[in-house]
């Protein structure tokens, strides 16, 4: 509570011009207030979310340097208040080099809503894939150096401190208990990655835009954002029956290389993206493997097409994740195929937008369909009403079949 009051007091002080006039003149304060209400469509119509958000962006620049800070508060209907900083970084602009250091969100690749080479900033999965893009992506402490040569960029990122995926709490409607034959014991002794110089993540990317095609080539050495669950089983020596399970979550190092491109053909944009990950772990039924997991390499790729028919904009993406040197004992499918489809159209001079974004899980006949209506009552005041419809019984989307939801977002940007 004290933090909230301090945050609000600071924000009001700055917005009212309490800071020195000279400083305020070259500082931009923007942000938004938002009410977000979600109601489950199943019998009890529980509130899945009822939240007010205050999101403030403070930007200041002076010649070759600048900074940005993005503090936010979530006021949740259950009384919980979350206050944090999404990004806070400083920039140094030199002739051909930009240096950014601090907490930042880094986005790579050409895919929409799918992470293939876009692996630097981990995700906040407390509400699955539903939050807005800026909210689902976690800021990370990083040093980013961009070297520019014409329309080409060489980018180097060093992430000294590992940040894992944020998972939902056990009482969340988005939490799914890992499936074990008996109640396991969790050993969290290996869950944390050591914070030292040699444990950092490093990424490099070369990107170019030309009059015909844009492309990126990247490589990285990183920790898997999701922990591998190492499982030790103990059997009763007399009966031979399973007597205990110890689960040890542990993050493993990955190496990856990949690239992406986008180009225009006629009136359409074709996009592609691929990455090869070395050192992923998968659950296995093979009793001979250590800890019930197998290490395999993975190829992940996407082909996308953005096109317009009768002023209706559409975007189709075909995605496949392929486990290399597949073993039949692995519980995951060898190939995981997903399709995304976006369709939208603007009306009333871009004040009204109808949109639907859908994921289709072809392996499990599951899907997430997200239609929404967005209306700008006046400039900077936006109302969204939408649905999140999960279909199927298992898999990434089908497992949330009970979480169908209608929601509204009322947002005032300033």
């Amino acid at each position, binding site marked *: 509570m004290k933090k909230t009051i301090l945050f609000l007091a600071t924000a009001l002080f700055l917005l009212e011009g309490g800071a020195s006039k000279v400083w305020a003149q070259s500082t931009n304060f923007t942000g938004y207030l938002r009410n977000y209400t979600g109601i489950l469509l199943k019998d009890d119509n529980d509130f899945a979310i009822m939240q007010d958000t205050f999101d403030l962006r403070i930007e200041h620049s002076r010649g070759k340097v600048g900074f940005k800070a993005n503090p936010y508060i979530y006021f949740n209907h259950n009384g919980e208040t979350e206050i944090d900083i999404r990004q806070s970084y400083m920039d140094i602009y030199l002739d051909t080099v930009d240096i950014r250091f601090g907490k930042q969100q880094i986005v790579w690749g050409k895919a929409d809503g799918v992470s293939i080479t876009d692996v630097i900033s981990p995700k906040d999965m407390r509400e699955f894939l539903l939050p807005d893009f800026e909210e689902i992506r976690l800021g990370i402490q990083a040093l980013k150096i961009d070297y520019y040569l014409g329309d080409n960029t060489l980018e180097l990122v060093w992430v000294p401190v590992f940040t894992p995926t944020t998972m939902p709490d056990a009482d969340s409607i988005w939490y799914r208990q890992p499936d074990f034959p008996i109640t396991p014991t969790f050993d969290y002794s290996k869950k944390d990655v050591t914070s030292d110089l040699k444990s950092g993540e490093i990424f490099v990317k070369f990107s170019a835009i030309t009059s015909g095609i844009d492309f990126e080539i990247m490589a990285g050495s990183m920790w898997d954002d999701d922990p591998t669950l190492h499982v030790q089983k103990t059997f009763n020596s007399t009966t031979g029956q399973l007597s205990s399970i110890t689960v040890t979550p542990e993050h493993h190092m990955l190496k990856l290389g990949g690239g992406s491109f986008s180009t*225009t053909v*006629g009136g359409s944009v074709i996009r592609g993206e691929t990455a090869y990950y070395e050192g992923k772990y998968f659950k296995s039924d093979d009793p001979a493997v250590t800890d019930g997991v197998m290490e395999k390499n993975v190829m992940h790729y996407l082909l996308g097409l953005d096109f*317009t028919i009768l002023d209706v904009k559409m975007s189709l993406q075909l995605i496949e994740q392929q486990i290399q040197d597949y073993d039949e004992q692995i519980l995951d499918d060898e190939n995981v195929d997903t399709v995304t489809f976006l369709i939208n159209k603007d009306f009333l001079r871009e004040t009204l937008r109808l949109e639907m974004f859908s994921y289709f899980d072809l392996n499990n006949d599951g899907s997430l369909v997200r239609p929404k209506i967005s209306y700008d009552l006046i400039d900077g005041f936006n109302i969204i009403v939408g649905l999140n419809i999960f279909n199927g019984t298992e898999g990434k989307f089908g497992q949330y079949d009970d979480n169908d939801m209608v929601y509204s977002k009322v947002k005032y940007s300033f």
Partner: protein
Amino acid sequence: MNVLKKRVLLAMTLMVVPFLAVAQAEITGLKVIENVYKRPVGDDMLGDLTMTLTNSRGEDRVRKIKQFTKDLGAIEKKIMFFQYPADVRNTSFMTWGYDEAGRDDDQWIYLPALKKVKRISSDSKSNYFMGSDFTYDDLGDRHPTDDVHKLLREETIAGNPCYVVESIPKDEEYMYSRTLTWIMKDTWIGLKKEFYDEDGDLLKILTVKKYEKFSGLWIILQSQMVNTQKKHTTNMELKNVKINSGIATNKFTVRMMKRGIR
């Protein structure tokens, strides 16, 4: 005046008139439009653009953009930074347009919420720019060879002698069936333009309200587009104009799209 002088004057007039007639005959609709297309606007330009959108109920919406343009010979590069309203602030839009007839522009948009630059199709030229009455194509330099031009007549608007040129697109699918443009003879500025829809009905009227000379070049500072069918108006005003200020080529890059105005 004595008889000799009259005869000499008559002879001179008779000699000059055919040349004037030839010069007049050489002006064609295509030539007029080519002169408009080639009208020098400087090697580079920057300015603050304000668009005021007024609907049939008289309600206004305002959009503010900072724009930079640079002519690199066969390529014209343009970058726009959206400043207002708040929900589009820091969005930027870059276009590389080519003199080569029939070659599509390259276009990119930077959306700060997505934190990435996306290549977009230039096929959306018939879409309206930020909800205004200007389409993307209205704002660009349409190549003279895209239409068949015919000089209809000469008229005077607000004391300015103008050529009136009818332009019919070669592409039958184009959003306008024809346009009529009133082009000033002395400046090659299109002072007025009428746009006709696919049914041949008047759709929009563009009127140039203010133009000034900067560094010896004529620049349009205020224009108004009225959609006569929907009773919607867009007033466009360019301020803080700088011509030939030596904008660096590296202004028109992904780096600047992401960084914004500094």
